[in-house]
C-alpha cells in the first residue's frame, strides 16, 4: 500500500476540484435530534463547507449508493402480444467522502455476494466501479463495536483512506484513481514525523473502544440456542418494522415487483430492499408463511448475519456500526441480543 499526506488546505482544494466535474457526496447535517445533537446524512455537496469532517455517524448507511432502496432492473415497451426489454447499467462517476472503515468493510462483504459469487450483479458492479471512495478514520463512538467483528480497520475497497493527524491527513492510497487524485491536488511524501503522528493516532483510536461484543461462539450458539427463550424475549419487543435492515450497511435482502403504467404500454421491473423482519418476507403464494412470528424472523436475521455468512465467507455480515441499534425504537441491538445469548448459554 502506498501512503502520502495531504495538508488540510490541499484537501479542501481536492474536494473543491473534484466537485467541479463530478458529483461529490459527503456527510452533511440534516436535522437535530431532541437533545440538540446533529443528525447526519450522506448528501450531495454543493460547497466544501457543507462537508462535516467531524461527523459522528450517519443515521443510515451509505449502502444505498450501491444498492438503492428502489432500483429499476429493466423496462419494457409493450405491444399487444410482444414486448421490447431495455436494461441499463449506466452509472455516472461520483465520489463519496468520509466513509468509515466499517462502511467500507461492509462494501467488501457486499462485494463477496454481489461481485465474487455466482451470478455477479451488474447493477451493483457498475455502481461500485464508478464510485470513488475517500474514507475517513474516526475515534469510536460510545456504542461502536466494529473492533469485535474485525471491521475497525480497512485495507482494501477504497480509493483513498484518510487519518487526521493534525494539520494534515495521512492518506492510504488504494487505487490508481486514488493515486491520481492525491497526486493532482498536492499529495506529499510521508515524513518520519507524519508516521509517528499516524501511529499515535491509530493507538489513540484503538484505546477508545468502549463497547465489546463477544462473538467467539455465536455461530455455534445460533444453532445451540435455536429454541432459546432469548429470541422470544427480544421478538416480543420487535415491531417487525424493518428499520434495522434499512439502515444496516450490509443487509441486502430484496424483493422484485413489476408494474405497468396506466396505458399498459410501458412496464418496469423494480427491485426494492426488503427486510427479513417484515411479516411477509417468507410468505409464499397461497399465503403460507414460513416465518409467521416476529421472534422467528428476528432470529433468522441474526442467523444470516452471524452464522450463515460466516459459514459462507468466514466472516460475520455485521460490521459493528450499531446503526440498527440506534434505529430500533424497541432497543434491540446486536450488543444486547448477543450478550443475552452468551449469558443464557452460561446459565
Amino acid at each position: 500500500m502506498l501512503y502520502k499526506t495531504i495538508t488540510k488546505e490541499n484537501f479542501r482544494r481536492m474536494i473543491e476540484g473534484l466537485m467541479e466535474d463530478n458529483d461529490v457526496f459527503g456527510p452533511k447535517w440534516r436535522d437535530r435530534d431532541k437533545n440538540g445533537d446533529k443528525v447526519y446524512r450522506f448528501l450531495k455537496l454543493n460547497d466544501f463547507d457543507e462537508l462535516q469532517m467531524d461527523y459522528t455517524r450517519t443515521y443510515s448507511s451509505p449502502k444505498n449508493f450501491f444498492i438503492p432502496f428502489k432500483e429499476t432492473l429493466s423496462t419494457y415497451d409493450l405491444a399487444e402480444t410482444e414486448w421490447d426489454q431495455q436494461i441499463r447499467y449506466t452509472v455516472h462517476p461520483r465520489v463519496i467522502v468520509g466513509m468509515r472503515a466499517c462502511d467500507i468493510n461492509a462494501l467488501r462483504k457486499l462485494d463477496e455476494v454481489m461481485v465474487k459469487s455466482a451470478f455477479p450483479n451488474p447493477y451493483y458492479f457498475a455502481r461500485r466501479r464508478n464510485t470513488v471512495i475517500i474514507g475517513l478514520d474516526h475515534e469510536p463512538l460510545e456504542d461502536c463495536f466494529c473492533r469485535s467483528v474485525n471491521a475497525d480497520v480497512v485495507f482494501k475497497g477504497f480509493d483513498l483512506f484518510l487519518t487526521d493527524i493534525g494539520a494534515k491527513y495521512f492518506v492510504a492510497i488504494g487505487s490508481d484513481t486514488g493515486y491520481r487524485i492525491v497526486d493532482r491536488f498536492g499529495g506529499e511524501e510521508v515524513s518520519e514525523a507524519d508516521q509517528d503522528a499516524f501511529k499515535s493516532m491509530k493507538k489513540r483510536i484503538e484505546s477508545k473502544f468502549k463497547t465489546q461484543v463477544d462473538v467467539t461462539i455465536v455461530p455455534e450458539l445460533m444453532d445451540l440456542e435455536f429454541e432459546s427463550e432469548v429470541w422470544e424475549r427480544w421478538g416480543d419487543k420487535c415491531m417487525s418494522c424493518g428499520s434495522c435492515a434499512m439502515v444496516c450497511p450490509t443487509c441486502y435482502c430484496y424483493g422484485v415487483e413489476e408494474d405497468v403504467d396506466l396505458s399498459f404500454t410501458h412496464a418496469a421491473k423494480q427491485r426494492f430492499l426488503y427486510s427479513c423482519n417484515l411479516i411477509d418476507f417468507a410468505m409464499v403464494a397461497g399465503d403460507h408463511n414460513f416465518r409467521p412470528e416476529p421472534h422467528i424472523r428476528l432470529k433468522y436475521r441474526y442467523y444470516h448475519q452471524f452464522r450463515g455468512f460466516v459459514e459462507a465467507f468466514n466472516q460475520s455480515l455485521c460490521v459493528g456500526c450499531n446503526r440498527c441499534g440506534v434505529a430500533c425504537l424497541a432497543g434491540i441491538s446486536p450488543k444486547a441480543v448477543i450478550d443475552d445469548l452468551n449469558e443464557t448459554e452460561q446459565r
Partner: protein
Amino acid sequence: MTLKIPRYDINREPFMTQTPDFNRKSQLLQTERTYKARINAAIQLTPEEKLFQIQILDPKERAQFSCLPGQFVMVELPGCGEIAISISGSCSNHEFIEICIRKVGKVTGMIHRLEAGAMVGIRGPFGTHFPMREMNGSNVLLIAGGLGIVPLRSSIYWVNEHRPDYKDVTILYGARTPKLLLFDYQYEEWRKVFNLTMHTIVEEPDENWTGPVGLITQLFDQVPIDPDDTFAIVCGPPVMFKFVCDHLSALGLPMQRMFVSLERRMHCGMGKCCRCNVGSTFTCLDGPVFDYWSVMNLQEAI
C-alpha cells in the same frame, strides 16, 4: 484545478454483449435479460393446473438453453411479475420447454389466461438438479405427492432416454383425489414404453377408482426396496417427503441417496434476494434439489 473521473462502462465489456447463458453462473452477464418464448400449447390438466409448452424464439438462445431434471426457470410476464417454476418436460428436448403452472397468485393467475401464441419471458435454468448420472447402474425410486409429479416428470423422461443406465425404476404417485392425478394420460406410456413400474394411490377415491386408497407410504408394501442399491427422488409437500424419507431411512436407505426438491419464495433465482435463504443456504443456488442429509441440517427446511 479539477479532475474529471472517467466513467467505467460495464456495457462495453465483451461478456455483456454475449447471449446470456445462465449456466455460466460466474460470468458477469445481463442477469435480467429474459429469453422471449412463445407458448406453443397450453393444456388444461385440472381446473388449477395448466401445462405450457414454450419455445424460445431466438434460435441462438434456444440452442444455448440446456437444463437438467430438477432445475427451474424464472417465468416472467412483463409488467405483471416473475415466478420460479420447475421444468417439467424432457431436458434433452431442445425445441421446447414444458412447465406446469398451478394457479395460486397474481402471476400464475395471469399466465393461466395466456393462450397458445402468447409470449412469456424466461430466465434460467437455475438451481441444482437431481444427480441422474450418479444413479447409473442402480435402482431408482421416483416418489411424488400431488404437484410433486411436476419436477419429477423431467426425471422420468431422463430415465426413459437413458433407460439402459438404470436397473428397476419405480414411480410411486399419490394425490388427494383421482382427479388430481396429473398426466394420467401418460401413465400407460410410462409403464409400457418407458418400461417403468408405476403405482398410484389416492386419499379420497371416487366411484371409478379401483386402485389403493391411503397415504403414499402404503405403496411401499408393494415395492421391494434394496437399500444398498437404490436412489430415491422424493417430490411433494414437506410433510409428505419427511414421512417418505423417514420411512426409507428406516429401511436402511442412506440419507445421501434420497433427494428432495424444496419450495421457497424466490425473487431472483441467483442467490441475491435472500428470500429463500436459510442461514448460509440459498434454495435457488444450493437447491432446490438437496439430499435428505442436507435438509436434516437445514434449520426450518420442513
